[in-house]
């Protein structure tokens, strides 16, 4: 295990992406809205200062937004995803080992960099990402992941740190831990924070100095590991290969209410097909397919209906054709006429390695044919663009698709969307 971790975190990532293409938005309050433009999912520092909240419904925030001329965008995950990939691949140049922790965060292994000025190196990383991609990042460096996360938090807030904080010396660590509330320690939720406060443990320094027995008793084994990490003893390593997912869900609220079985079938087919694709990506197959549908619980005046149906597959599968077939079957089973549906989803479980699937003697599906068909389908969609080939059940035009009205163009992935300049 390495003994020096850097956590690189993009500042207000979604807003920063918009600023790359709209430099005029620097120093202007910016918010990014969720799918369907329902609520705020990202805020620039200026927007935070105006009191706009994470998750706040758009209609509720609208008066503040209008009053202070806050600029708002729908989220464009294609653009955000590409910018994230650029950041991660730029970061990968600086380390032999990296864990992509989220869309806008990565842990870098900086252990064993002998004779290198680490603060200087971290500033080079920060400047390179800013220059190459245009995204500002904060970097925290420390002997454990938990401490790197803590250092990052301070790097982001403290003006003196200017985006980079390296915590390797005992006296610096002590100061940093003392100024961090226990509730802000990575992995301490609000429930544990309340509990710790009741014991008089208010900051991370106090938490680092509890006995092992106390930590184990009140915070479980996971908490003990966390306390050890706060003391500088690494207990968690980089997760370089993301663990295969145990359950995959694909669901979406509809942009417009849906009543017909046909529309629901198309939506469910699309979700099932996304699940199948994700399965193939991680070389797994699933045994169980669950479909759920429900009406809008906030429309109390309308009749309400909620139902789910689970189907056990005879043989584990990752074939789009099969999963769509079973998901449609499940939907037909639970669909009731006369309701206005708000959401549908497909959830798959009992996921195992694709090559370890148990056979069934009554199986009449030609599995090798399916496998090679899926391989071709994935290759075509990768080289010719997403959605080039799909199963017919997914349909073509979908009036129910969530509308993102204020969506920015896909500047970096679609040639017709690139910036036009004179």
């Amino acid at each position, binding site marked *: 295990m390495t003994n020096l971790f850097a956590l690189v975190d993009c500042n207000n990532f979604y807003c920063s992406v918009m600023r790359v293409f709209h430099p005029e938005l620097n120093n202007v309050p910016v918010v990014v809205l969720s799918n369907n433009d329902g609520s705020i999912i990202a805020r620039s520092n200026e927007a935070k200062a105006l009191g706009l909240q994470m998750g706040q419904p758009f209609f509720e925030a609208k008066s503040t937004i209008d009053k202070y001329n806050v600029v708002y965008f729908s989220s464009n995950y294609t653009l955000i995803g590409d910018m994230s990939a650029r950041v991660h*691949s730029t970061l990968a140049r600086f380390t032999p080992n990296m864990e992509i922790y989220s869309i806008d965060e990565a842990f870098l292994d900086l252990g064993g960099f002998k004779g290198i000025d680490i603060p200087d190196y971290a500033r080079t990383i920060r400047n390179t990402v800013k220059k190459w991609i245009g995204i500002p990042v904060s970097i925290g460096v420390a002997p454990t992941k938990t401490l790197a996360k803590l250092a990052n938090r301070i790097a982001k807030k403290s003006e003196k740190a200017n985006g980079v904080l390296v915590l390797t010396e005992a006296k610096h660590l002590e100061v940093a831990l003392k100024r961090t509330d226990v509730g802000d320690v990575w992995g301490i939720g609000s429930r544990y924070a309340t509990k710790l406060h009741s014991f008089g443990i208010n900051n991370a320094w106090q938490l680092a100095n509890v006995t092992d027995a106390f930590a184990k008793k009140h915070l479980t084994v996971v908490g003990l590991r966390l306390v050890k990490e706060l003391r500088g003893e690494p207990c968690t390593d980089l997760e370089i290969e993301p663990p295969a997912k145990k359950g995959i869900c694909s669901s979406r609220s509809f942009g417009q209410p849906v009543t017909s079985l046909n529309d629901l079938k198309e939506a469910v087919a699309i979700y099932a097909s996304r699940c199948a694709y994700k399965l193939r990506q991680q070389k797994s197959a699933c045994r169980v397919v669950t479909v759920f549908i429900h009406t809008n619980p906030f429309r109390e005046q309308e009749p309400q209906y909620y139902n789910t149906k689970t189907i056990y597959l005879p043989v584990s599968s990752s074939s789009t054709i099969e999963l769509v077939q079973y998901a449609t079957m499940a939907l037909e089973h639970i669909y009731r006429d006369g309701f206005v549906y708000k959401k549908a989803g497909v959830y798959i479980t009992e996921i195992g390695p694709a090559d370890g699937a148990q056979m069934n003697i009554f199986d009449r599906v030609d599995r090798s044919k399916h496998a090679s068909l899926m391989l071709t389908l994935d290759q075509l969609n990768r080289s010719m663009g997403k959605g080039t080939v799909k199963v017919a059940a997914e349909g073509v035009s979908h009036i129910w698709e969530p509308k993102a009205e204020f969506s920015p163009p896909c500047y970096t992935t679609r040639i017709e969307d690139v910036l036009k300049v004179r």
Partner: protein
Amino acid sequence: MNTKILLPSETVSFILLGRDTETKHPLFAARVPAGFPSPAEEHIEDRISLSSYLNGHPDATFYVQLEGDSMIDYNLLEGDLLVVDRSLHVRSGDIVLANVNSEYTVKKLEITETGVRLLPGNKKYNPVEITEDLEFLVWGVVRGVARRIRQ
């Protein structure tokens, strides 16, 4: 004379350019039947890739499309796809994508002792002197240009 006339299909296969998304090695390398090793196997190279010719660091490379006739003297035409590399250090004489007072523009950058100017490549337009009251940003350096002749 023993000149072989290239059939269209042969010509095409010869200049076929690789795509970035393609597998790194031609597929046939993996499909040689047992007992008949291909004499070409050890000589396989990646195909010529236009993007690796034009682009610098792929992570720092963005494309923009040129409109108007302000750069024709530098052989940049309306509709050209410009390859903008943000990783390059800006030098005087570079053609750059700049942002002046919230507007994007592609011009030649001239840095002298007397100041900084953006020079258009067309006498119809005037150079822009960068003064302190302007919001000025060099977004990236134009490294190359892609133009399609046949639509």
